[in-house]
């Protein structure tokens, strides 16, 4: 699997090869064997060519925060898998979240309404730009968590769609 990351406009590509017990990382065309162990929620221990590194990772959508030696790095992740993922394969309960701090402009679907894949459910506005948020699944609106006019933070759940 190849992962592509962006740190302050610089793009890095990292390849992970997994073979039985061995994980090999390819970075800058260099193969590095790595031992990786999750030690707690958000916390990972990595042994890299004998070097022991403890790293914290927080994920919020495509944004990753990496904590290492007292420093916090903001990394943007783009994985191939993300790109391949088709919405039809999703099911269950989906939260429609605000992608950025914004204001709810219009609610297009009420609780109980049927929605189709990619059908718009809510419109938010940020920095004078309106964007329509779409449902990733077919289902029914089960919860509406905001009102028109509400100011919301990035990541706030706005509406829940359930396929069950």
């Amino acid at each position: 699997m190849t992962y592509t990351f962006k740190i302050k406009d610089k793009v890095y590509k990292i390849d992970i090869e997994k073979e039985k017990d061995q994980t090999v990382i390819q970075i800058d065309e260099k193969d590095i064997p790595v031992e990786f162990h999750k030690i707690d929620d958000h916390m990972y221990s990595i042994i890299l060519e004998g070097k022991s590194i403890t790293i914290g990772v927080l994920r919020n959508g495509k944004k990753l925060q990496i904590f290492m030696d007292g420093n916090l790095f903001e990394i943007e992740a783009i994985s191939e898998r993300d790109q391949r993922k088709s919405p039809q394969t999703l099911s269950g309960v989906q939260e429609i979240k605000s992608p950025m701090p914004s204001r709810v402009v219009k609610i297009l679907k009420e609780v109980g309404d049927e929605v189709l894949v990619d059908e718009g459910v809510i419109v938010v506005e940020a920095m004078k730009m309106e964007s329509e948020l779409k449902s990733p699944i077919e289902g029914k609106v089960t919860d509406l968590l905001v009102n028109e006019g509400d100011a919301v933070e990035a990541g706030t759940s706005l509406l829940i769609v359930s396929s069950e």
Partner: protein
Amino acid sequence: MFNKILIANRGEIAVRIIRACKELGATTVAVYSDADRSSLHVTLADEAYHIGGSAPAESYLVIDKIIEVANKSGAQAIHPGFGFLSENEEFAQRCEKEGIVFIGPSAEAIRLMGDKITARKIAQDIKVPLVPGSDGAVTDVEASVIASKIGYPVMIKASAGGGGKGMRLVRDKEEFESSLRMARSEARSSFGDDSVFVERFVEQPRHVEIQILADSHGNTLHLFERECSIQRRHQKVVEEAPSSAISAKTRKKMGEVAVKIAKAVNYSGAGTVEFIMDQNENFFFLEMNTRVQVEHPVTEMISSIDIVKWMVRIAAGEKLPFKQKDIEMQGWALECRVYAEDPETNFMPSPGLLKYVKAPSGPGIRDDSSIYSGCEITSFYDPMLSKLVVWAENREAAIDKMASALREYIVLGVKTNIGFLIRLMDSEEFRQGKIDTGFIERHPELLTPGTVDLEPALIAAALAVDDLDQTEDSSKQDQSNWKLLGRKAALSGGSLI
């Protein structure tokens, strides 16, 4: 000794005081605002009472509410901690009236030292060295005349000030008028009082202060000095004891001066006399803080005296069992204030949910904090997360220990100044003790990580994303009703992201 003590504060200092009171055998009473229901001081205390909204003005600053809880719970004494009502004369008076012991000095001592102009007059009367400046509050015209007389650079300070608010450094005459205007308006909005005074600005000053401990039987002693020259926005970030800049002779003299000031206002309890010191060890009285100081732990580490416990014992009428000559200092202590703030954007506070917290430990390491994995840092209060304190045999060893301990500290979820503190500990000038209050401003390179090997971070990112994707996939496959239910419940609360 008191049977029951109310702690009128929150955060790490409330936790520190609760622990001390418990060790003294007293039942502890916490008070809390809406935002603090799950704070550590509430869960640690024996009793806890809700006192109102999250904004301090609706809870921790409301005298009536705190007195009401004291009466209802039967607390015999109140420890105010620092900030909030700790230096509020009216609160101390009110406690007295209600027959509750205020753990601190008399309302009169708070009043005399609380007003900087009065404090300056007292110091002047007993021949304590002062920075040349205006005798008290000044009009705009007077201010400008005095500034020219004492010579630039000058400092404009709010009479009712504290924490760097309403303070302006003026380097030349042209800037004076606009700086004066800004200082007044800041003073008005922060303290409701726009009177200011003017004094000479000491170049490359070091901030050195003396810890006072006085009982109500006439014994007033000092526990040596602390140096707090590493400041950002006029607020302390790193403190140490002793100071690397003062000789035994100056230490003795400064201690005696501080004791003299405390005696002049019949001080009792713990207090701090702050001085500004130039590069030739000339020191001038700044102010006296009539409460426990944030940085009191460094003094405790070198003197082996528990300041908070002594505050309580003194308030209960106990006599200090030791004399000045009995107090010895040993080794070196350092404190770093770990803040939820971003050094890269002028130390802007960074509130948020702490997803994971792990404090360092080991011999000589003390972490005074109230944070834990899952707690929330709100924007209602100071963004200080912890006071990391270390003790070692000398300054160099203490810095090494601090640098190592900071590298062990993990705080996930908000921006912190930990990386900055590590770079500060590693910097040659700091290690050599070449510090003054302008140190951070002079070293902007310490604010950013600089050249860091990003490879491990990128590898970790890739492995973590891979791991998280797999976990999410498997949880999707066996999504149970319980999980769904929990998720819905959490969402309807609207607090989960």
